[in-house]
């Protein structure tokens, strides 16, 4: 029971981070129908920017906020300059461009921050050995609680943005039919750029949270997290924000349980595989994920 609870606590926090990054994928996919392969690397780059600003003496909280703003500009700028004009010429090309961004950002980060042992990243939350609460015997560290709260709060704000604001309405209209949205006066270009920006700034936050948990950042910081996030987005359905959150939490808890209760067979090395195989199985039954909507095709 103690162990079970422990795995669930840890899993929820990791799951919240996956969900955050997965939401970024979903926001971009809903808006433009593209898969942003560079989502994780954008987040990693922003995390290094946050580290750099923090290193210059700005308190971490403000550094994270500046980093998220930087992420927004990075995402929106990329969409407005490169993605849009490539999408006009060849829709499949956007995926290739996002792979190019993946390679380029990773390389650029390792050129700028070139210490091979990585950089020490502080956590946003109290992280001394005694900083935890004990619930039914399981230790719940403050940094994990903090990560969960921040991630869930941001997701809540995002859902409010989608469902209650004029901007959210514009986003949904562009997602459902870009042509008609443009005809009724929705500034679709602005909306698309903003959705890439929002996705990238959520990535920046998730990067800062991962960095805080690991205590160390390197250019490969977000790679595994991105794989988990893409598994979460696929599992939940690429066009369903709620699905991404639920699937992210499920995967986070599931991998901890699998690794914890089957150390001989699965253990730490294979826990990623558990997540990947589970999406395989789910997609067999439901090709558009658990909560995704089936696309109706016309001939």
């Amino acid at each position, binding site marked *: 029971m103690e162990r079970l609870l422990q795995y669930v606590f840890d899993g929820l926090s990791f799951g919240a981070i996956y969900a955050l990054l997965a939401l970024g994928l979903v926001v971009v996919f809903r808006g433009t129908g593209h898969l942003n392969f560079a989502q994780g690397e954008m987040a990693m780059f922003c995390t290094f920017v946050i580290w750099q600003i923090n290193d210059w003496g700005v308190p971490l909280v403000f550094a994270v906020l500046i980093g998220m703003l930087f992420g927004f500009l990075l995402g929106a700028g990329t969409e407005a300059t490169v993605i849009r004009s490539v999408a006009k010429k060849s829709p499949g090309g956007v995926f290739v461009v996002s792979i190019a*961004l993946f390679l380029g950002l990773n390389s650029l980060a390792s050129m700028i921050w070139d210490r091979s042992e990585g950089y020490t990243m502080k956590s946003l939350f109290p992280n001394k050995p005694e900083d935890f609460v004990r619930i039914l015997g399981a230790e719940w560290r403050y940094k994990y609680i903090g990560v969960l709260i921040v991630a869930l709060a941001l997701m809540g704000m995002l859902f409010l943005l989608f469902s209650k604001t004029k901007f959210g309405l514009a986003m949904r209209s562009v997602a459902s039919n870009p042509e008609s949205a443009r005809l009724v006066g929705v500034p679709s270009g602005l909306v698309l750029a903003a959705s890439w920006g929002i996705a990238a700034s959520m990535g920046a936050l998730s990067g800062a949270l991962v960095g805080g948990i690991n205590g160390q950042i390197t250019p490969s910081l977000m790679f595994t997290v991105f794989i988990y996030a893409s598994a979460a987005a696929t599992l939940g359905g690429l066009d369903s924000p709620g699905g991404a959150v639920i699937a992210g939490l499920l995967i986070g808890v599931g991998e901890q349980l699998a690794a914890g209760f089957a150390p001989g*067979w699965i253990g730490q090395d294979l826990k990623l595989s558990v997540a990947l195989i589970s999406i395989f199985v789910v997609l067999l039954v439901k*090709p558009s994920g658990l909560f995704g909507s089936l696309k109706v095709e016309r*001939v």
Partner: protein
Amino acid sequence: MLNIKEGSVTHWAIRVVGALLLVAFIVYIPTQSETARIGQFASGFTLIIAAMSLNLVLGYTGQISIGHSAFFGIGGYTAAILIRDHGWSPGYTFYAAAVIAFVVGCLIALPVLRIRGAYLALVTLAVAVLFPTLLRWRKLEWLTSGAQGIDSVKYDELPVWPILGELKGRDGRAVFAYWLGLLVLVVTFLICRGLVKSRVGRSLVAIRDNETAAAVMGVNITRTKVIIFGISASLCALAGVLSTLSSGVVTPDGQYVTLLGSIIFLLIMVVGGAGTLSGPIIGGLVYVWLDNTTRGIGTDSKGIVGYVFGWTNQSPATLILGLALIVIMLFAPTGLVGLIRKISRRIVTVTPRAITTE
């Protein structure tokens, strides 16, 4: 602006001169170049084969796959295991690898049939990430030797090819890898050409352009998709075998066995021109050239290159690659082949022969 009739003397003259130049180039490299250059071409051939195999699935059928590194790895590991544990002669491992990869490819294609677009990209991404972790899995160590990989082919165990003369040491190995790679490349090219220019190829393109319409016109979608995925996997496995035979080693971290491999194959195909026969060849040669030129850039570079990249002690090779890819997608979305065709059409046009019904 030149106008040539198909089948005229000028047309044949251009073709013959072109073919002779190609042959001269192919023979010039292994006989006149230094070992490193020969090795670069040999590894380029391997990449071209992998990109060609991906082209069948992605370029012609429109099915995104970033899982081909797994098939490359299956080929590499099949060869290494058969040679090390079962004493096979290297030549026969090609057939075994092709068969195994075909079966695995079909098995993966079956569940993937229902999945499309971005979902397919993510599922194949999962395959690419899963494969190296399986290789490292403790329960499979008896087969794969875990993280350390398999060191199978020794320098002095290479088969003797009398036509190439005596091959010894590092130089001999490079020359051997070059000719073997070229041979497999030609075979792969002919297989792809045969597929693409036949009824099969037309049904692939029909599926890519509109699946429902293709089905209405009588294309068996399931069978075509599964078999083409299998063929593509087995061709990619040939590239893996080549890589094992020329380097002697396979590891789970090998550049082309991991996700990075899939990305590189995709990149080569796109840069050259997806859905064209010569695209992967041009893309592969350009990639190898770009990779080798930019790897050399470092803190000791002079001139403008040193000025731009002198501040870092990391190689900017991947950054330049990424930028080049973006530029190509912006200005030549059909790849280099599309660009070359567009330019050459301004200079020379070939009027096709009139079709007569006899």
